[in-house]
């Protein structure tokens, strides 16, 4: 039987309809027209396929040829990913630049990884070994920070028939042959994996331990667990991107995936310029040696933005399978959701809330569920943590993307316009944010600082009381409040300025180690408790305010670095002495 040649019958922006596509599969990658524009089949009705094209379709004509590739959209997995920067469909942007200059032309065909580069491979198994899926055959030092395990693909098990000696090999060289039930299988450094399909694991685990970010309001007040999912939401100008950058820079994950989907070009450039120069506080090596960037900026094709999220999370899963703790930062998931809306509208689908397709919650859930703490196929504990930025229109959190996202995450950092306007950064609002991981990470913190949990509760209560008092102050002014309540206002200001606000551009304060976080908070709350006693004993608040140490307390966060805890202790000692002197003066009760 002669199958008709598939041809384009209609073009409407990135959505192309083609006839004669009887043999096509859902989500198969196709090449459209003379330029071979990359697209993906998203609907099949009889012989007619609807294709979402990842590149600009200008001057594409009905009648143009469509070629199937027989495979769904897949990424290349192997050494060389770390330190690279890709577009939404894993085309390396530096190679594109070398080839065609500053502008991204259509129909660029570039391999995601360099197949000619030789990597020093060190085998970990010997011939004859029984091997399981996901087991490491050997390893490659990908960057000074990343020892890349070369794993068996998830569908290969059997006996190791042969394995190469240590030496330099390319991605395509056969490293080993495995005798499987279905016959011999050759294994190379390169694997491919369809992006829309989660990679297999052995089992999901409970989250145990925080992803330390070095940001006080996050680690101390609203911690994220390793393997957890968080959303950071705020209107424009509230500092979502800078907060995301801070997390990508300082969090203690071993691999960072930063997905810039639908955001500003210059922001990606900033990451590209900055990360190679910044040092990881844990290893002292450049941050780029553990980072992979996916950049599909707002002016790049919309359909590629839709897939960039999946490309990123698949790469993250691949490193998780090697036993790494991976953190994924997606900026912004709202732009991604908007591509779903735009594509659905072009497909003339029935819209649900605010024009978004009815599948929006399912798609969000599928994305966030690809994170988690797991036991890998090889039996190691590893995790993928996800932080998604949400950009609600008009800063209104009741819109569908924010609302549905909140169903699938357990940690919510709400950015506040008023705080941002006063340039209080990070502008995470302490009353509107929450974390359900506090229990999960409690045990870890208890080992670092036994009083962490108590301090945390105390400071949150203090801030809540301050908020209630502020409502009164807004009506009648602060002077009518009793001294004990004005103390709360006073200490809350210190907590906000001296603890919660943290400058991303201050060398000493950009990263705050857990021990320093607790030391700062402990000192401020000590002032509160002792101050309360003093006021009860009749000491006026003005005397406490006027203590010589108070201005130093406000500047302590930037005055003492992570290795200068002694200085903090000394300040605490001085503050205690000053408070004790005040107590001496106190009139007898």
């Amino acid at each position, binding site marked *: 039987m002669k199958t008709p040649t598939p041809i384009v*019958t*209609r*073009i*409407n922006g990135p959505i192309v309809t083609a006839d004669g596509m009887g043999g096509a599969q859902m989500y198969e990658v196709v090449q459209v027209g003379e330029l071979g524009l990359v697209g993906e089949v998203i609907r099949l009705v009889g012989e007619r396929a609807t294709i979402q094209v990842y590149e*600009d*379709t*200008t*001057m*594409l*004509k*009905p009648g143009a040829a469509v070629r199937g590739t027989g495979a769904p959209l897949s990424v290349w997995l192997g050494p060389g990913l770390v330190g690279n*920067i890709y577009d939404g469909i894993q085309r390396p*942007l*530096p190679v*594109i*630049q070398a080839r065609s*200059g*500053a*502008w*991204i032309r259509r129909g660029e065909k570039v391999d995601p990884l360099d197949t000619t580069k030789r990597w020093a491979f060190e085998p970990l198994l010997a011939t004859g070994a029984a091997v399981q899926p996901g087991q490491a055959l050997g390893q490659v030092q990908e960057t000074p920070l990343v020892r890349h395990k070369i794993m068996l693909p998830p569908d290969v098990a059997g006996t190791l028939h042969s394995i190469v000696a240590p030496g330099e090999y390319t991605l395509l060289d056969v490293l080993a042959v495995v005798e499987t039930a279905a016959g011999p299988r050759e294994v190379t450094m390169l694997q491919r994996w369809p992006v829309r399909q989660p990679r297999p694991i052995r089992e999901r685990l409970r989250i145990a331990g925080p992803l330390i970010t070095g940001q006080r309001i996050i680690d101390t007040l609203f911690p994220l667990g390793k393997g957890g999912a968080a959303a950071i939401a705020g209107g*424009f*100008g509230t500092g979502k991107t800078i907060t995301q950058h801070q997390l990508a820079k300082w969090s203690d994950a071993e691999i960072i995936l930063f997905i810039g989907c*639908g955001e*500003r*070009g*210059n922001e*990606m*450039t*900033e990451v*590209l*310029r900055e990360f190679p120069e910044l040092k990881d506080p844990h290893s002292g090596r450049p941050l780029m040696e553990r980072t992979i960037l996916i*950049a599909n*900026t*707002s*002016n*790049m*094709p*919309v359909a590629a933005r839709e897939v960039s999220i999946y490309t990123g999370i698949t790469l993250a899963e691949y490193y998780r399978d090697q036993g790494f703790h991976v953190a994924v930062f997606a900026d912004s998931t709202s732009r991604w959701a*908007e*591509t779903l809306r*735009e594509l659905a*509208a072009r497909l003339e689908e029935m*819209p649900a809330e605010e*024009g978004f397709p009815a599948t929006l919650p399912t798609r969000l859930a599928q994305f966030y569920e690809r994170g988690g703490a797991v036991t890998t196929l090889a039996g190691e504990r590893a995790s993928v943590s996800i932080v998604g930025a949400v*950009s609600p*229109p*008009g*800063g*209104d959190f009741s819109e569908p993307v924010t609302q549905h996202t909140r169903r699938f995450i357990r940690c919510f950092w709400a950015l506040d316009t008023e705080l941002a*306007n*006063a*340039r209080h950064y990070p502008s995470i609002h302490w009353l509107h944010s929450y974390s359900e991981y506090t229990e999960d990470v409690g045990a870890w913190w208890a080992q670092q600082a036994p009083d962490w949990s108590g301090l945390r509760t105390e400071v949150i209560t203090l801030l809540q009381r301050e908020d209630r008092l502020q409502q009164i102050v807004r*009506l*009648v*002014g602060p*002077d009518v409040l009793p001294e004990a309540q004005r103390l709360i206002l006073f200490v809350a200001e210190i907590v906000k300025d001296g603890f919660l606000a943290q400058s991303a*551009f201050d060398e000493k304060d950009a990263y705050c180690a857990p021990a320093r976080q607790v030391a700062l908070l402990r000192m401020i709350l000590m002032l509160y408790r002792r101050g309360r006693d003093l006021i009860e004993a009749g000491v006026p608040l003005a005397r406490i305010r006027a203590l010589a140490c108070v*201005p130093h307390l*406000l*500047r302590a966060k930037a005055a003492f670095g992570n290795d200068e805890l002694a200085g903090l202790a000394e300040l605490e000692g001085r503050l205690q002495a000053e408070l004790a002197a005040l107590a001496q003066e106190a009139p007898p009760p």
Partner: protein
Amino acid sequence: MNFQVEDRGLQYTGAARIEGSLVFVERVRDVGYDELVEICDPAGHRRLGRVLDISDMHAVVQVLEGTTGLASGTLRARFLGESFRLPVSRDMLGRVFDGLGRPLDGGPPPLSGDRRDVNGLPINPVARRYPREFIQTGLSAIDGMNALVRGQKLPIFSGNGLPHDRVSAQIVRQARLLEEQVEFSMVFAGLGVKHDVAQYFIRNFEDSGARARVALFLSLADAPSVERLLTPRVALTVAEHLAFDCGQHVLVLITDMTNYCESLREVGTARGEIPGRKGYPGYLYSDLASLYERAGRIEGSPGSITQVAILTMPSDDISHPVPDLTGYITEGQIVLDRDLFQRGVYPPIAGLPSLSRLMKDGVGPGYTRDDHAPLASQLFACYAYVKRVRALAVVIGEEELSALDKLYLKFGEAFEQRFLNQGEYENRPVATTLDLGWDALALLPRDELHRVSAALLAQHYRQAHG
């Protein structure tokens, strides 16, 4: 004329349907998506259009110059075999063009063999150079608090009746780099603005002697609204040529983006698209991004494109989709404030909601002065507190405020009247701006200034009160 090529493409007579600005032509062959179309009415007048949707059955053509007078039986459509292209050349500076790039000043069309697709191509993020060089605008509210850097896109959010034209004209007159004496070339795109607004800008360019360095593209209020969808693309295509081929520093001024978005909504509605917020199409964000992202610097070229787009917020609502989506794309925003304006402060640039995202990398040591960033942060913090004190004063009366809060009120007054406020022809050097900032802070006690280091306080803080 460049795109009125006579004998190109097939010609079709008659349309199945004409609806708003859309013409549906049936049984076309060999027509591409986004192809340029020439529509001819019975009188022989030609208008340009482009293909929005094409199938083997019919083509949907958007007529850029309106469909008035077209008859479905007699119109003739000629498909020109390429997308909308514009001849670009350095000689376009000093000239006036219509919204589609055709001369309006009676001069000849620019001579150029270089014809560019007006949609442009996305800049590879790897090839971008991060914008860093401080541009001095001579306006304290911008230089001191929301500094503009070369290659930035910084829109002005305004409202009807606010002096955005005067503010942007002043920026254009005064903008320069600190060390180099490089002058900006300018590209001006007027979208749906009135003739007198366009005249105001032209006069301004003439008065400041910049006329020969400006290319104007005018799609004024009486031009067909769909034409506006191409005007900013035409202007930016010329800007890209000047910046990245000729190595010039280009300042692009677009006014008013709200009119552009309105046209986009009009076309979307005519096509029967599913609307998003307030009836604007769901792709408004991507569409705006395809314009705003055409600013910046690229590796290997000395030139740059800095964009200042003006938009009027309907009923001063910053959460309206147009300013909202713009703010998500641009690198900050300058917000004009009606309250300041009514109190006679010029420029009425709102202290708190204005923001320049690139300021952090363009000011400070090596660019302006060491105290620039901490000073700005301190001014923001204090001014935010002033707003709270004022709200409180409304309730309990100024008399009841604490002594400290009264000092803050004084500071707020000084900040608005002496720092923000300045003459329309006053060009303040950045050092003067910073000193004025310290003068205002001097009204507050030293202990209130937590955001500046002790060293900077020692250097700049001169106690004024008490």
